[in-house]
């Protein structure tokens, strides 16, 4: 009897949405196939992608349907994965094993270098761990880009009976999905990062606040925690370090760290005034590190390879790699991990592959619902924190959404303000009232009854929200709207009442 051929197919939510489910169903009882469900490489335009081993490394077949099985088994028509330009041009560290491994195979994780960061951390003093992060110059990937070591130092030095580590898996920015990929595809990497943090600050307990929209992520993570517990990994200096997954309930602002902590305590997810910062007084008033999933997942490599390795990648103030997430009307949407410094245009051309068939470029939004719009003339901006800060823009969590020629900028601007009005936590007036007024003005303009004064009012309102809001929801919400007006003024003027 001949051996069954091992075929690899991603079980990632987006791979399934692209059709991996029917492929798996159709092949599951075929004796000639041993189907292994992996994480996704993030080349979602090629999913469902089926791979098999060859002397040339993995071979891949793209956009597979159940009928493609004979072709794949015969070994014809496959492309060596290492020659897929979308992947070959990336600099993958955090996502290096994606598409290769099974998410819950702890032995495989370990065989590929997993847990070495934690082992290093367990041999070091807390001060030495934090020093390694200082050298690495890692900044948080959740949006605010704050130096990670700095927060850890504050939490480490705080005196308290309990301390907590919280992974922010709320991933609220529309257009982003790298946290979801990590949670579903490489959950031990997140847990390892959290354990390293716990060891550095002396924490007793960990939480992962996962958005309700990610059921597969929460389930995978719970299974991973169970496996880690069985393998006695949740053990820090002889103390059990429990990690619990807590699900949210559909509120965007609960991704903001203080609102998240309120929500974790079971209350309304309203933003707290800072200071005190969570690192000083967070969950239940105890020192708490709240960090993004991608941030935690970046840390194991920093410990195992050294901070200097990380600091050698990227630009002056943006060290390491960034997980960019391409979406919207590009031809090749997917996950792109590259060192900081490429221009936005390079990312869109080299990885995005230009526009989807029939679509012409109009604008690109970087940084989620609070990020600015860039027209074709501004694509040479380098992808790094310093260049974006100088342009008054944000990289946020790395979401990049491309809009095509059919996009109605007035409708898009109204959409943004309606989103803010809906999601405002209500704590401060500029955001609570301003976003509703902003939405009303844009609805008026869209209906054809707006005036020039309305545009002036909208600009004033935007400036007020920018300077007077308590958190970045109100403070950044005007940016996509005002940049839409700035770059496409005619579209707004043409809709005004004459």
């Amino acid at each position, binding site marked *: 009897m001949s051996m069954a051929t091992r075929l690899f197919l991603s079980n990632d*939510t*987006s791979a*399934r*949405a*692209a059709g991996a489910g029917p492929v798996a169903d159709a092949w599951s009882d075929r004796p000639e196939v041993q189907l292994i469900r992996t994480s996704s490489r*993030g080349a*979602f*335009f090629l*999913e469902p992608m089926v791979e098999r081993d060859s002397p040339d490394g993995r071979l891949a077949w793209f956009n597979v349907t159940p009928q493609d099985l004979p072709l794949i088994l015969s070994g014809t028509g496959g492309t060596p994965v290492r020659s897929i330009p979308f992947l070959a041009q990336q600099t993958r560290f955090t996502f290096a094993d994606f598409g290769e491994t099974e998410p819950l195979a702890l032995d495989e994780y370990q065989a590929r270098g997993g847990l070495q960061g934690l082992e290093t951390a367990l041999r070091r003093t807390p001060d030495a761990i934090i020093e390694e992060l200082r050298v690495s110059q890692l900044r948080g990937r959740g949006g605010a880009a704050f130096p990670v070591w700095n927060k850890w130092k504050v939490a480490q030095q705080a005196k308290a009976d309990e301390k907590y580590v919280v992974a922010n898996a709320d*991933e*609220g*920015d*529309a*257009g*982003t*999905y790298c*946290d*979801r990929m990590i949670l579903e595809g490489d959950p031990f990497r997140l847990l390892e990062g959290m354990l390293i943090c716990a060891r550095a600050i002396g924490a007793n307990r960990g939480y992962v606040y996962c958005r*309700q*929209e*990610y*059921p597969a*992520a929460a389930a995978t993570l719970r299974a991973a925690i169970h496996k880690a517990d069985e393998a006695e990994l949740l053990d820090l200096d002889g103390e059990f370090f429990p990690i619990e997954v*807590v*699900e*949210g*309930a*559909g*509120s*965007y602002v609960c991704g903001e760290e203080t609102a998240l902590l309120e*929500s974790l*305590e*079971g*209350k*309304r*997810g*309203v933003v707290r005034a800072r200071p005190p910062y969570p690192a000083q007084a967070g969950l239940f008033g105890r020192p708490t590190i709240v960090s993004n999933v991608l941030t935690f997942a970046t840390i194991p490599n920093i410990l195992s390879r050294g901070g200097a390795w990380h600091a050698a990648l990227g630009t002056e103030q943006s060290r390491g790699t960034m997980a960019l*997430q*391409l*979406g*919207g*009307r590009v031809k090749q*949407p*997917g*996950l792109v991990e590259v060192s900081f410094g490429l221009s936005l245009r390079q990312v869109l051309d080299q990885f995005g592959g230009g526009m989807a068939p029939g679509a012409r470029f109009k604008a690109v*939004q970087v940084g*989620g*619902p609070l990020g600015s719009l860039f027209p074709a003339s501004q694509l040479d901006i380098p992808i790094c924190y310093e260049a974006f800060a100088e342009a008054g823009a944000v990289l946020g969590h790395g*979401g990049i*959404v*491309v*809009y*095509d020629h059919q*996009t109605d900028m007035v*409708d*898009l601007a109204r*959409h943004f303000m309606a*989103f803010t009005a809906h*999601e405002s936590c209500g704590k401060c007036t500029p955001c609570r009232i301003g976003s509703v007024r902003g939405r009303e003005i844009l609805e008026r303009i869209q209906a054809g009854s707006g005036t020039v004064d309305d545009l002036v009012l909208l600009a004033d309102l935007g400036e007020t929200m920018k300077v007077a809001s308590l958190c970045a929801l109100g403070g950044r919400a005007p940016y996509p709207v005002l940049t839409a007006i700035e770059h496409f003024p005619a579209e707004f003027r043409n809709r005004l009442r004459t």
Partner: protein
Amino acid sequence: MQKQVNEILAQARSEPPNILQALLVLQEKLGHVPLEAVPEIAHTLGTTTAQVAGVLSYYPDLRVTAPGRHLIRICMGESCFANGCGRLLREVQDRLRIDMGETAAGGKVTLDTMSCAGNCAVSPTVIIDRDLYGRVLPSQLDAMLERYK
């Protein structure tokens, strides 16, 4: 109802009591959180009705009315917006003759929007109950909705 609420909450007890998680468990079991149960919930958790009502009204995913047998959610996030979710929403509304947040006559389906399913690279996204659909074209809607009759 009082007994049922108590039984469910007894299984979800935590220290200190967590209002949001208690409400999520109730919704999981009952399909929604009945408003008339709020005093009982508050009593069981050892908190005030105002606290419970406050949390209940704050979170978009908590429902105070029973949803239809099927819940259709259309993603309105930016990647889906760029890929035509507006048209999808209009077409679903036309077919079911309901507005956002409404339940169709006969209690069959509830229509809702969401702000991102993390499926942006395979958008636009429609979620029906626990099934997630990507790259949805308006022409596929009829066949898709047919499955949830």
